[in-house]
């Protein structure tokens, strides 16, 4: 973990560090067990194909957890994450590289709250596909 950003150091337009991971089948299975979401869409290729996907997809919440981690790694304070509202706009397949990041949209000196727009994306067939967009996080900085 790097040094915690102070409120005074943050400006509208600042990016937060991008967090990247390759989505592996074993991790999605581990997430199913850890979260209790055993929907076969995330474990059974035949089932996923029966509803029109080429194979299993990651849980939306798997992706949201990755976005949340990008934000909490940036602020370095587990109690500083106040709210997050995430829209899932595209599915994520196995072995894709999932990136998450964000940009400061507003700062409030009264409350030391910072609003960050957040996103998650994969590269697919040469195109950038947003799995999470129009989404925000609210944090409080020291």
């Amino acid at each position, binding site marked *: *973990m790097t040094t915690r950003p102070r409120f005074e150091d943050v400006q509208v337009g600042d990016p937060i560090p991008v967090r990247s*991971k390759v989505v592996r089948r074993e*991790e999605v299975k*581990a*997430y199913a*067990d*850890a*979260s*209790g*979401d055993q929907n076969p869409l995330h474990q059974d290729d035949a089932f996923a194909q029966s*509803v*029109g*996907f080429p194979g299993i997809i990651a*849980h*939306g*919440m*798997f992706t*949201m*957890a*990755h976005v*949340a*981690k990008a934000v*909490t790694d940036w602020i370095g304070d*587990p*109690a500083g*994450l*106040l*709210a*997050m*509202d*995430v*829209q*899932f706009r595209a599915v994520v397949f196995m072995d894709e590289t999932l990136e998450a990041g964000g940009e400061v949209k507003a700062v409030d000196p009264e409350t030391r709250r910072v609003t960050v727009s957040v996103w998650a994306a994969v590269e697919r067939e040469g195109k950038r596909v947003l799995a999470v967009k129009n989404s925000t996080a609210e944090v409080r900085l020291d």
Partner: protein
Amino acid sequence: MPLNQALTGKEYPPLSMEVDRESVDRFAEAVGENGAMFRDREAARAAGFPEQLAPPTFPTRMQIPVSAAIAADPDLGLDYTRVVHGEQAYEWVRPIHVGDVLTATPRIADIRAKGPLEFLVVESEIRDAAGEVVVRARTTLLVRGAGGGAS
């Protein structure tokens, strides 16, 4: 078959969960959270928290049964095989930690249709043993129209 919009506002019986260390360890591992406060009680205490912390999205462990309880309501008319997770919001009052006993009261906040899609919005306030709100959760499920393939 459309969802029964008359159920908007309906509350369901509360669900409870004790936050045990094994579940927190497993969740932290699954989401790649290696921060010391999420892995170790002493590190969390050194930072002023009472116990090892759960990652922010840990309440998903409660939202799954919350959504399932509502999906199982025969009056709602929900075909769970046509459901995808459209949106998720969390508002954290404080971090959840090992030893918390949490209670969530599921509630249908909204049901609406937009083209071939229906939106089912489920809210729950998650409270601790003292009755204080710890997390507010809102889950929006998208129900694809019958006959429509997944996209």
